């Protein structure tokens, strides 16, 4: 047959062909899934506000974690500066801002740990005390576990970077990681509003 030399191509071969970076798309998809998980926990939290049949109640024991919140939210800003530095191959600045991000995240996590310590040992509120305890520790704990995962990844990058294995060629990958970190921060805004403002 004479057409056997026709390749599977006609005019399109020379056209521009660009598609999004698969890492970014996958992270966005994962964020959608995570959002759904958090939504369910937030809905449960809101539904059970004021439904505990025994104390302690949120208003008696919760204090606004303002300092923690400021630390976590500003880490979103510092990771962005670090990314910009990486694009310019300013590795010193990158390392500095990356370390600051890690420290800010760690402060947040430490703050949560202290808060839980106070709640458990001082106020006697555990996950099985009442509905408030169940929903509070689940929601805040779910968020904190995401912070732990994020910090683990940030630290891994830091180790590689200090070993000199990171350069501006990795900026796409690190953008994916920072996308996750921004998500963790954004979720905190919701958790903070629901737990400490609406629920208190």
């Amino acid at each position, binding site marked *: *047959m004479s*057409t*056997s*030399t*026709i*390749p*599977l*191509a*006609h*005019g*399109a*071969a020379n*056209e521009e*062909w660009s*598609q*999004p*970076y*698969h*890492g970014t*798309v*996958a992270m966005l*998809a*994962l964020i*959608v*899934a*995570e959002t*759904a*998980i958090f*939504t*369910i*926990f937030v809905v*449960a939290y809101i*539904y*059970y506000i004021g*439904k*505990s*049949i*025994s104390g302690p109640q949120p208003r008696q024991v919760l204090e606004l974690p303002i300092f923690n919140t400021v630390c976590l939210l500003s880490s979103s800003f510092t990771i962005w500066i670090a990314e910009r530095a990486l694009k310019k191959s300013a590795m010193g600045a990158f390392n500095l801002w990356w370390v600051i991000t890690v420290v800010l995240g760690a402060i947040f996590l430490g703050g949560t740990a202290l808060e839980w310590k106070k709640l458990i040992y001082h106020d006697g509120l555990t*996950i*099985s005390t*009442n*509905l408030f305890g*169940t*929903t509070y520790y*689940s929601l805040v704990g*779910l968020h904190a576990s995401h912070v732990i995962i994020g910090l683990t990844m940030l630290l891994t990058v830091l180790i590689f970077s200090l070993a000199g294995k990171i350069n501006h060629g990795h900026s796409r990958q690190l953008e994916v990681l920072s996308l996750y970190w921004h998500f963790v921060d954004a979720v905190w805004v919701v958790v903070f509003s629901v737990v400490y403002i609406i629920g208190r």
Partner: protein
Amino acid sequence: MADSTLPIGSVIDLTPPGQVYGTWLDQVHDWVVTVDHKKIGIMYMVYALIFLLVGGFEALLLRVQLAVPHNNFISPEVFNRLFTMHGTTMVFLMGMPLIIGFANYLVPLMIGARDMAFPRMNAFSFWMTALGGLMLYYSFIGGVGLQGAGSAPDVTWWAYAPLTERAFSRGHSTDYWALSLIVSGFGTIGAAVNIIATTLCMRCKGMTLFRMPLLVWLYLTVSGMILVTISPLTAAQIMLVIDRYLGGHFFDSQAGGAPIVWMHFFWVFGHPEVYVLVLPAFAIANEVIPVFSRKAIFGYPAMVAASCGIGLISLSVWAHHMFTVGMTSAQNAFFVLSTGLVGVPTGIKIFNWIATMWGGKIRFATPMLFCTAFLAQFLFAGLTGIMLSTAPWNWQLHNSYFVIAHFHYVLVGAIVFCFLGGFYYWYPKMTGKMLDERLGKWSFWLFVIGFHMTFDFMHIPGLLGMPRSIYTYEPGRGWDTWNMIVSIGAMIQGIATLVFAYNLVRSYFKGPDAGPDPWDAWTLEWATSSPPPAYNFASEPVVNSRRPLWDLKHPEDPDSRYE
């Protein structure tokens, strides 16, 4: 056009596959460590087929028990375990792996990609799913139940609270259920993320979104739905585990927890899940019907829009499972109307399939037979669905066998039929061998007869008031004959499934060679050898229309001229 003259020499790699070396242990090792999307896809499918046989066997035991009144074929405890395991198996261990297996195998081939976007995550997802299934079935041995006597979960597959709480479900059987669904859920979410990234980022040159085969579009929609439906289930299961292990009170009515919250969370997953399973069935019909009608699909953009529409609307219909719970009339009205609304895009699809067949030169090979039966059966299933979504009708028939008949009409009549068609259609691509047509026709007709005997007649005892999930019933309520017919039909379906399974095995060894393009089809997977080499395409294909192989076979009249 004969296969040998296919003008696809530039893409196809016709070097015969090399001799397979190594012992069988080497080959097993090869399959276990593989990251090839085709091998992973096949593993998903085999896994699903094994659980199809297991879940089907459980269904047959249930039907034997229900065939005659006052039967004691199995004990009530075993009956409860069996229908819990049957439901869980068919949805999570058969349905989900089956749809993901087809996606794994077909999506990269259809978009001209070399593999999925994340091959290692792909393998990880499969093994998570596999672990979930093994864990669930391990409960038969390891799940010590009440007084050390129990085993498998017996809380039904929707597992309403507070029955699942520690106080009412002792032992570990419910824990096996919750944990295995969390684990396999992670696998499913991973697979969905992978399919989305593959579809959006790995298409070959010229494969714009609106040139993708409809199957790929539907899998894109389904993957998006999986992200927002499986995740709530995972969240609810985590809550259940917190309740059971950490003494939480999410669903504990003694401490103010509300069982209705579980119902909402479960059905927020549970109803879209039906569409997650049925859209891939549509996807197969979208590929099979045009090829066997010798016409391009009718109304491609409308089909894409309808798929996305079904995906969106299906997220807002969940509480039609809960009309009898006692919601406000505004809530009832909302869920009646939103459920009715799903009928619109679904209707568009049915009309488009009929329009595709209309005036076509239809070839009734086995794949087409299954898809044609699907059309009629799915229509009927949709009609009983509209009946059940009407709140007053639902109040009358909720939790009756009418409901069971309705959703099995969807799950078997639509999903299983389409996937059997899909197996007959793509088996030649996957193995290089044709499935036996004579056995195929046998399995089809046995399945049609068995299916209609079972599920047509199952509506009637439902209308006569027979509730679901009952162990046995009294004679003289007018249910006896119908139940006997239903049970006989179930046996015939069992035989049909065995014929199909026998065909799969026999044709692998004795089937005639398929060649790269046995059906004279138009999508890219047929542009490579059967089975495709590990790298899929020798050179990256470039496409200009929705039917790249049509363009190749008919350079005088390419599709690109009309799109």
